[in-house]
């Protein structure tokens, strides 16, 4: 029973298809016949050639006539549709959808590629930004470090250095002085007062003698206090043999015009 039911259905389908085709073909034939009729009518119309003088006017008149005719034709005409049966509609619909799908696919691929490019750009820019930030951070650190160092160094270090230097020099000076004093005491003592002079009438007014150390101190002080006149008058408190000693060894110098004045040799210049 089922088979029988199916069979009439399938035959109607085939009929539908052929019906649609036949309808279309019939329409085409009709249109072609119309065209042939028009063509016959046209061939009956005579030919007309133009010369330069009459061309413009004749053409303008012709154009007016034809445009008017076209206009009335357009106004009369109602849009004629191809027979709208299922087959035709389905085919047309499929075509439209195919076109639409194709266009949408194009759009999709364009947008996808744009998207990817944007992503790449974003990644690249992000990486660049990170690198720049890292550089900035490390530069900041270096900067702050350097700033600190500069401050600390330029103040305390130099100060400390100077202090230590001064202290060392002072210590050295003290040492030198002490050593000098000891050396002088050991090797150049003051003469013994108890040494008796044979000739009592030579009143050697023995003013209080000062040590060689003290003589040197006087000479030294004078040299640094008054550099332009470092001469000291020989006083009685200077023991003459020591003066001779200083003069002969080049430690002290006589004044070129005044034999009573001596100065310390400027060893530091």
């Amino acid at each position: 029973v089922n088979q029988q039911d199916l069979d009439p259905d399938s035959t109607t389908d085939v009929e539908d298809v052929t019906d649609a085709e036949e309808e279309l073909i019939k329409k085409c034939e009709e249109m072609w016949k119309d065209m042939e009729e028009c063509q016959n009518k046209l061939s009956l119309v005579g030919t007309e050639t133009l010369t330069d003088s009459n061309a413009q006017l004749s053409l303008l008149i012709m154009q007016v006539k034809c445009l008017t005719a076209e206009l009335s034709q357009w106004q009369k005409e109602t849009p004629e549709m191809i027979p709208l049966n299922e087959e035709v509609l389905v085919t047309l619909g499929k075509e439209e959808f195919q076109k639409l799908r194709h266009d949408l696919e194009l759009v999709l691929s364009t947008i996808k590629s744009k998207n990817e490019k944007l992503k790449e750009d974003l990644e690249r820019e992000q990486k660049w930004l990170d690198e720049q930030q890292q550089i900035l951070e490390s530069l900041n650190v270096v900067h702050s470090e350097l700033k600190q160092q500069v401050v600390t160094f330029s103040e305390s270090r130099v100060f400390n250095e100077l202090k230590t230097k001064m202290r060392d020099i002072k210590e050295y000076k003290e040492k030198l002085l002490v050593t000098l004093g000891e050396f002088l005491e050991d090797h150049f003592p003051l003469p013994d007062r108890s040494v008796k002079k044979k000739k009592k009438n030579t009143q050697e007014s023995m003013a209080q003698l000062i040590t060689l150390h003290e003589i040197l101190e006087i000479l030294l002080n004078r040299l640094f206090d008054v550099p332009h006149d470092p001469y000291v008058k020989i006083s009685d408190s200077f023991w003459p043999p020591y003066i001779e000693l200083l003069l002969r060894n080049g430690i002290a110098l006589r004044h070129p015009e005044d034999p009573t004045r001596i100065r310390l040799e400027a060893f530091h210049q």
Partner: protein
Amino acid sequence: MSVLRPMDKLPGLNTATILLVGTEDALLQQLADSMLKEDCASELKVHLANSLPLPSSVTRPRIDLIVFVINLHSKHSLRNVEESLHHVDATFFLGKVSFLVTGAGRESHCSIHRSTVVKLAHTYRSPLLFCDLEIEDFRATMAQRLVRMLQICAGHVPGVSALNLLSLLRSSENPSLEDL
């Protein structure tokens, strides 16, 4: 049959035929090649002729568009076109004729004044196109234009007739009132 008529035959199926008339054989051939390279839904046929009338011995399809090619460097091409115009039926000039002028680029070689061709096109109420056919890019553009015009003249574009196109191509530099 010495006069060319626009509707003397039934059209071929999905076919559009253009006739190029001019003395410059090489240029016409190049233009024809460029046109045939164009993408077109209709089948294109290009016929070349030095002058009209065409020999009646040859069977040819219905001609949809005639383009007269004038070279500004040669007075001969202008005279040739002027004479050929007398062998064209008046109804052709309802949008199915166009004038194409080449050689305007090299001003020094021009022996025909531009205003002469402008006047000619105006007299015959047909569009005037300028193109240096020797330059490939310009030729390709002009070929595209001609293919579109041809499609309309052959009726392959629904809703637009050759006459409509003519009205649309009314150029603004028509030497208007003085001539009339």
